[in-house]
């Protein structure tokens, strides 16, 4: 494996790789897909990887990450590992359909693409590109602003597989769908999976997206997920990120909402060397509502960067953002929320809140809550705070005989629950609740088998606190 020294070398490597693949792997593509790829690689070539001078990447230094060499699989790999051992993830008592991705590829042995009686299609994007060209043509890469980000362009150029979900009009998918993307490879790996989720009118879906690593090796995951939400439809989306300290996750989510649709998306970042969540919400139809939540618990030298762009394009929409984070050790964090209210998007309500706790002098946080407003009949507000655990609350707990460690834990947990409580599925919330507790106690590292610690789901997590004393 060659080691690169500059991001430019990696860029050159990727553009070269694209030229090679054009005549091999990508030669079977449908015309519009290859047109998209060619356009996207040109965009990427023009813009290159974002640098520290790029305003939207200020504070997140990719130099180290991009100075490494990465291998990229353009074919599915047959790994000699027991897949059933890797994918035993299941939230206890939580009935889900699991779609597993290993190193960016849908895992064999599971149905590659399944069409249900009610018309729902769930499975691999690669397969869907073959079988449902009309759907792909209508939606794929059609998200607002998707071509403005060079990482997304890079993804479009190389993307082959990922999750594809189509929910027809009037269908409520009652079983939650869980996507588990696992990276397990013994060399530096670049993974670029692509997910496309389409909801027709009057439908609903619960989608859980987990990103995990199963070893301690370096990886760069550049993942793009597009959501198209039809009129009166509901999406409940939870992202769970638990990666090793050498992984980099660039997770771009594009949500496009039609009239009266309702989206709740929750990004829970528990571990990861460098995590960047790009969340773009376009409120295209009147009466739509988006709730964007996030929780990040970072320590060591981890870095978290959450960028949320909510575009109120039409009147009568509402959005609300809540991001909370606790940073320990030498961890660093960035939050940038940008609410855009277009001209004529009257009667908009938009709220944004970011709260941070720094536990050590070596931890840092930058928060940039932006409002850009071109309509007058609006109610917009944002708040941002940076601080510590409340000393008075601490004193209160201590005076009731709770040890300092436990009191601190309890306060941090209380701080985090405001976000966790927004998760609507009870078993999932309980599981995440447990994970957060473990994380706060320093017990949660990347799991040896998988993120959800299903190895011992029955083991509950308790604080050693007699709550009756409080």
């Amino acid at each position: 494996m060659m080691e690169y020294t500059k991001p430019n070398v990696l860029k050159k490597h990727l553009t070269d790789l694209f030229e090679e693949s054009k005549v091999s792997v990508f030669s079977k593509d449908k015309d519009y897909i290859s047109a998209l790829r060619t356009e996207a690689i040109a965009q990427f070539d023009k813009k290159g990887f974002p640098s520290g001078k790029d305003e939207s990447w200020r504070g997140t230094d990719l130099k180290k990450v991009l100075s490494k060499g990465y291998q990229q699989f353009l074919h599915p790999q047959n790994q000699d590992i027991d897949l059933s051992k890797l994918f035993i993830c299941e939230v206890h008592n939580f009935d889900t359909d699991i779609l597993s991705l290993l190193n960016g590829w849908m895992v064999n042995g599971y149905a590659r693409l399944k069409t249900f009686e009610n018309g729902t299609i769930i499975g691999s994007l690669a397969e869907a590109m073959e079988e449902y060209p009309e759907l792909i043509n209508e939606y794929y890469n059609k998200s607002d602003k998707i071509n403005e980000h060079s990482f997304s362009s890079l993804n479009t150029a190389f993307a082959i597989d990922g999750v594809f979900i189509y929910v027809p009009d009037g269908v409520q998918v009652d079983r939650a769908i869980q996507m588990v993307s696992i990276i397990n490879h013994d060399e530096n790996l670049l993974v670029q999976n692509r997910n496309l989720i389409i909801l027709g009118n009057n439908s609903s879906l619960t989608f859980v997206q987990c990103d995990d690593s199963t070893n301690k090796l370096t990886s760069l995951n550049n993942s793009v997920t597009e959501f198209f939400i039809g009129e009166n439809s509901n999406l409940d989306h939870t992202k769970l990120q638990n990666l090793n300290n050498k992984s980099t996750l660039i997770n771009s989510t594009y949500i496009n909402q039609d009239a009266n649709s309702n989206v709740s998306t929750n990004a829970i970042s528990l571990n990861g060397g460098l995590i960047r969540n790009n969340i773009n919400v376009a409120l295209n139809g009147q009466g739509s509502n988006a709730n964007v939540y996030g929780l990040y618990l970072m320590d060591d030298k981890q870095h978290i960067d959450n960028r949320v762009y909510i575009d109120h394009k039409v009147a009568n929409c509402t959005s609300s953002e809540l991001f909370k984070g606790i940073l320990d050790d030498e961890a660093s964090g960035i939050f940038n929320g940008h609410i855009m209210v277009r001209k004529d998007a009257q009667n908009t309500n938009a709220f944004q809140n970011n709260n941070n706790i720094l536990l050590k002098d070596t931890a840092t946080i930058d928060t940039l809550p932006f409002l850009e407003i071109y309509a007058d009949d609006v109610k917009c507000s944002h708040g941002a705070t940076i601080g510590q655990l409340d000393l008075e609350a601490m004193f209160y707990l201590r005076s009731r005989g709770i040890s300092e460690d436990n009191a601190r834990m309890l306060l941090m947990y209380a701080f985090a629950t405001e976000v966790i409580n927004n998760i609507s599925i009870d078993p999932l919330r309980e599981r995440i609740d447990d994970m957060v507790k473990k994380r706060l106690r320093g017990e949660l590292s990347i799991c040896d088998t998988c993120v959800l610690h299903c190895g011992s789901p029955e083991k509950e997590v308790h604080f050693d606190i007699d709550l009756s004393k409080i």
Partner: protein
Amino acid sequence: MSKKNNILDEVTQGEYKYGFVTDIETETAPKGLTEDTIRFISGKKKEPEFMLEFRLKAFRHWQKLKEPTWAHISHPPIDYQDIIYYAAPKKKKELESLDQVDPDLLETFKKLGISLEEQKRLSGVAVDAVIDSVSVKTTFQDTLSKHGIIFCSFSEAVTNHPDLVKKHMGSVVPYTDNYFAALNSSVFSDGSFCYIPKGVRCPIELSTYFRINAANTGQFERTLIIAEDDSYVSYMEGCTAPMRDENQLHAAIVEIVAMNNAEVKYSTVQNWYPGNKDGVGGIYNFVTKRGMCKGTNSKIAWTQVETGSAITWKYPSCILLGNNSIGEFYSVAVTNNHQQADTGSKMIHIGKNTKSTIISKGISAGFSNNSYRGLVKITKRAGNSRNFSQCDSLLLGDKCGAHTFPYIKADNKSSVIEHEATTSKISDDQLFYCNQRGISTENAIGLIVNGYAKEVLSQLPMEFAVEAQKLLQIMLEGSVG
């Protein structure tokens, strides 16, 4: 509804009352900017060698820079070779008293409502009047000198107090700071200089009045305020310009140094010509203002009322270097018609236990865009620091924009930062409540806007508060449709 619209028309068509031109003979440099222009300016002012050196260094640096584009403003490119960099009212000899000042000039200031004479008699404010970036007359110098206070034009300071100038000029805003600071450092023509010695509490308010008069000129003035240990000064700045169809550039620098226990209060009512209601003409106001709380327990407070200028690009800042130092920023920025404002504050906490407050109230009407942009940075060693920021925007009309771009950075665990911002319009409920109690819509809006801005206006010295309130009413009353 039609009644409301009438009021709107009245207000938005209200003329800029300071837009006259005074016919004073001026002496100008040729158009364009080269090293020769700088030598010309420096020579004209009979400056010592170190000043010319400083200017040339700044100019060479400026040539390497590019105009910044990050602000939320747009304007046609500025041709820096099409500007006259030096324009001075012709004067024959040094003036001893007001009687010797050009009567036309006195008339100008009378029209502006700051008749130098009247000011002297009634309000007891020392005024340094600057026309086309050359200081015309400073009042009250004798009284001030009794206390050891130096308040004079920048040029005089260069001649009479070169050590002080040498020591402090560029110490807060170095010429390398930004594009417009470099430009100003190379071509600045005059400005005000103020020195408050140790332990002195300046008995009267100091004031500078800036006036652009000549056409095609840029105004580049420079203010330096030094407050030694245990001193106090309240400083005011006002400005107006004639109505012209072309855009004129104003790029000033204000530097403040506050030593141990010193306090400086700097208030501005900025009322440069904003252009006509179609957005033609007006001043480009690209200003760098920064204060350094160098000593422990020092305090710098900026208060600004921004109503004028076609474009405002201005971020009065505080560097809180001394332990326990305090920085404050109070701002009301009003934009109407096609005005653009990108303004806010920077608070850099370096010393321990430092505190800062930012209160910013933006009001946008017409087709204008009004942005708050600010930075709060708490460095690693600034333990136990505290910041509170509040940025509110009020929208009057559906064609204007109000934006907030705060940057908040914390690098230690013991500091607390709070930031909040809201954007809203005057609600029908509020108007209805006032109407119901017999207050006309026009008065109700005046009441609500003044109430909205009160937190900031109350920080202004009395003379300014009155002017600012009047300005607010002229600009906005009734502009809710």
